[in-house]
């Protein structure tokens, strides 16, 4: 499988190299990014490198959704509330102008200091949060605005109220809504892409992942607790289920890796935002001119075929 991903990227590289450099520095950046992706894939990351991604994805200084919002969007207007029971601060949703066009952005939001962490429930959404995101995405759909979804959630919240308010169903319905949208959806995993909470807002036309983000079906600790019967074996679990961007690309789960500044996104939020912005803009442009019905058909085919076994293809 690594071989296939390698081939795909080599092909993209040679296509890009042969293009007249109309877009100048922008294209240079793309070449560099692909080159780095290629290097990652050829050099299978070690268990230590995977664990470093887990740590960087969770780094407390890593830029969060609103750090990107303030650097990438103009005229930002935040939407609040699910119109039923509350406003979940663990999810941010709003309208803004992104490189000249209006977009709807939804994202998970962790807190920076102790109070904000508590207010934002460590980034773990409640059903009210999915509800707010759904409302924002419906608004995007009604007005033809592309949707940008930034994912950074340790996982759905394991709490009594979250269950009583039906988070299982809410995660399912949020995905179902995304499968119905007739506007482009671009997702980037910018930190932790944790299980159901992550996929709730990641059913996109194009899924990106920052270099040091992770994307997991369960936290490494949770996996270790179940399979190794010891949460302390998280490092082993991570090595086994390979949540790093390189592997996700190799498995076809994501479409591209977004480079981070050397040392990780937290070392230079401005530069991280610039790189993310370029990748998002380029991704949205891919869908310009595509009819809504075709867009959503392609989106569903994408998820219908991800990770399909050769025997079932």
């Amino acid at each position, binding site marked *: *499988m690594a071989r296939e991903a390698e081939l795909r990227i080599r092909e993209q590289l040679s296509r890009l190299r042969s293009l007249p450099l109309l877009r100048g520095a922008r294209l240079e950046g793309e070449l560099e990014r692909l080159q780095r992706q290629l290097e990652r894939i050829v050099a299978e990351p070690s268990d230590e490198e995977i664990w470093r991604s887990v740590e960087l994805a969770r780094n407390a200084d890593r830029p969060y959704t609103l750090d990107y919002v303030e650097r990438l969007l103009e005229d930002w207007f935040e939407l609040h509330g699910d119109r039923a029971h509350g406003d979940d601060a663990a999810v941010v949703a709003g309208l803004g102008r992104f490189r000249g066009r209006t977009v709807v952005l939804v994202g998970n939001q962790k807190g920076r200091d102790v109070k904000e962490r508590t207010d934002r429930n460590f980034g773990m959404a409640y059903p009210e949060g999915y509800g707010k995101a759904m409302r924002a995405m419906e608004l995007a759909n009604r007005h033809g605005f592309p949707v940008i979804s930034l994912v950074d959630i340790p996982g*759905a919240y*394991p*709490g*009594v109220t*979250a*269950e*009583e*308010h*039906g*988070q*299982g*169903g809410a*995660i*399912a*319905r949020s*995905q*179902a809504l995304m*499968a*119905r949208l007739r506007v482009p959806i671009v997702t980037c995993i910018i930190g932790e892409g944790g*299980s*159901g909470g*992550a*996929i*709730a807002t*990641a*059913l996109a036309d194009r899924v990106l992942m920052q270099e040091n983000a992770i*994307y*997991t*079906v*369960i936290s490494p600790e*949770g*996996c270790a607790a*179940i*399979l*190794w019967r010891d949460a302390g074996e998280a490092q082993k*679990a991570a090595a*086994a*289920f*390979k*949540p790093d961007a390189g*592997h*996700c690309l190799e*498995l076809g*789960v994501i479409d591209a890796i977004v480079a981070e500044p050397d040392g990780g996104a937290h070392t230079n939020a401005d530069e991280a935002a610039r790189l993310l912005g370029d990748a998002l803009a380029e991704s949205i442009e891919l869908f310009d001119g595509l009819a809504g019905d075709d867009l959503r058909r392609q*989106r*569903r085919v994408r*998820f*219908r075929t*991800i*990770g*399909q*076994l050769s*025997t*079932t293809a």
Partner: protein
Amino acid sequence: MSERIDVSIEHRHAPPEDGGRPHPNTCPGCGSHYRDDELDANLRVCPQCGHHFPVHARERIRQLADNDSFAEEAAELRSDDPLDFFDLRPYTERLAEAELSTGLGEAMVIGHAAIEELPCELAVMEFGFMGGSMGRIVGEKFARACESATERGVPLVSVTASGGARMQEGILSLMQLPKTVCAVEDLHDSGGTMISVMAHPTTAGVLASFASLGDVLLAEPGALLSFTGPRVVQQTTREKLPDNFGRAESNYRHGHVDQIVPRPELRATVARLLRLFSSNGA
């Protein structure tokens, strides 16, 4: 069938097996103990207290479908091991063992059938196969069941029993959530119907994807329907859990299921829904 468990001595309050785990045919509700044939004859519902014992996929199909009406599809599909996953044992070994013990190729059985002579597609999960976990083959089988229902213009009836996504397939198991969601949306767009029957337990990735998207949601009495299980909730939040936390009855009270249907009424209820969703036009 059910040869795996063969208990011939009928007695009350059977002592636990070695290791303290209760015998699977001992009722956790009232302690009554039954032979397999007794339980089967009663749809695996305790005649004393009404507790609903688990039902294997093949037996569920026998309970629901008209005699000999079931024609299995995609029975040949088998999971592979995309991540070379090895925890305490290799994933491939777990798969082989599950197949041996259940006689099934994966944790879901699909095929077409008739219920009270109404044609439908069935997608039934097997909790005995690695906890009914959803990997790529379960996702694929469910998607095929949706497509088969669409092609034949019949409703889909799904019966779920699952601990969630299959960790051994890593992120690819998470991708089965959007995959099955897209399959339901395609079914709905073609005018199709999905009846979701949630048996114990329907949790995590299965609850958070196709199982919650039926046109009608039915639950079996006592079934655990929660995204996160009670133990993890308690360990994480240290909250005292309310009675019936996460159970069908609590879900009903909080508005998440349409009806709780005791197993003896399940076939008739599903048939009623099939009639309602197929008759349209004066």
